[in-house]
């Protein structure tokens, strides 16, 4: 009888553990970042990175990040969405969200492919661009996730 109970307990533990993993996000920042660094080489070198930690809520959220660019310099923006358990959209604009006439320069949903978690944006602008993470609302507001963005700049002129 003890053996049966032991086996049943083990099965219960495995299922509970699976359930826990399912509701948590994969936020191993260093791994997510390293996956992006590969896509910089050989043309670009590392410049900086930004981690955005996100808690899902009952409302859709828009997080805006301003990223300055410079005249005559070539930059590459890389995004790893693997740390987001629910679908997230990334839109990049030439103006901040308070401006009505802003133009979208990039939209993740237009490029999204099943199984792909790394996306690249090479801006043509030479001023500040505005990255928007559009986080869907969920029925489970304790869920968390993270987005990693790596920026590289071109090495040779």
């Amino acid at each position, binding site marked *: *009888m003890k053996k*049966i*109970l032991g086996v*049943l*307990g083990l*099965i*219960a533990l495995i*299922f*509970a553990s*699976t*359930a826990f993993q*399912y*509701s948590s996000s994969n936020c191993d*920042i*260093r791994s997510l*970042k390293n996956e992006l660094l590969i896509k910089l080489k050989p043309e670009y*070198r*590392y*410049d*900086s*990175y*930004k*981690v*955005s930690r996100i808690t899902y*809520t009952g*409302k*859709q*959220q*828009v*997080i*805006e*990040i*301003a*990223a*300055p660019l*410079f*005249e005559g*310099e070539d930059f590459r923006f890389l995004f790893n969405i693997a740390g987001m358990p*629910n*679908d997230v959209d990334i839109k990049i604009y030439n*103006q*901040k*969200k308070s*401006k009505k006439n802003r133009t979208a320069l990039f939209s993740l949903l237009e490029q999204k492919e099943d199984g792909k978690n790394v996306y690249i944006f090479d801006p043509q602008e030479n*001023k*500040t661009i*505005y*990255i928007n993470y559009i986080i*869907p*609302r*969920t*029925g*489970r507001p304790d869920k968390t996730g993270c987005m990693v*963005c790596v*920026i590289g*700049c071109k*090495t*040779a*002129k």
Partner: protein
Amino acid sequence: MQKLTIKLAALLIISSLLYACGGDEEIITEEAITEEVEPTDMELLDQVEYILPSPLQIAELFKTAGLTYIGDLANKPENADKLNSKYDQKLNFGVYSADMAYCLMNDQTQQSINYLSTLRKLSEKMWMTDVLNTMGLTSRLEDNVGNEDSLTFIMADLQMQMDDYLEENGMGSTGYIIFAGAWIETMYLGVKVNENEKNEKLISRLSEQAVILDGLIKSIQQSDEDGDYTELIADLEGINKHFAGYSDESEEAFTLSDEQINGLSLDVTALRTKVIGE
């Protein structure tokens, strides 16, 4: 008793199964919710976040614009011994990082190694010993003397190690203060080289820094929960007044006038003197 135990175990398993399998249903529901979202249900977070470039990137911009090397401009390594507060150490870690980049980009490798030693001392004072000790930086610098591309990559590696350390230890605000120190020093080097010999390209790059300063001030403000950086924010806002004519909506490049650049030079020099404690 045994029957009750088996019933409880079975209940536990069924509960686990329901919870684990329930995930799929949840996702379907969430997708449906997402599609139905009305604009009024959107939570537009007021706070804008900022990505700041590396100090190396700014130094490189200035260098390509003609930031020549003047021997006694950079801060003296021995000044690091006078830094007692953590705040001063963080700011000056940025200052010495900028000086190291300035020397590296101008083939002053031995001087760069001296600054690396100063940075190592400061990082120990700041309890960040792992950052600079594990990279074999000195030998990498010595092995690449005269190869500017390789030296730049070494600096970029150093920057990434620093970024990782700060991120993994939840020290984002320290990163902003270090960046502020590096930014002030790079601006100081830029205005002084321009004072020595007027350089339109350098003035253009100095003017462009309006974009960075605004983001830097707001980043420090957002991370300053205890009001520790009020004075620094006020000082940086004083510098920001020189960029009042800048607008990110304008299609035309923003360039400071001669009068404005003179004013900027005076204020940057005064702030830098205050930061290094001279």
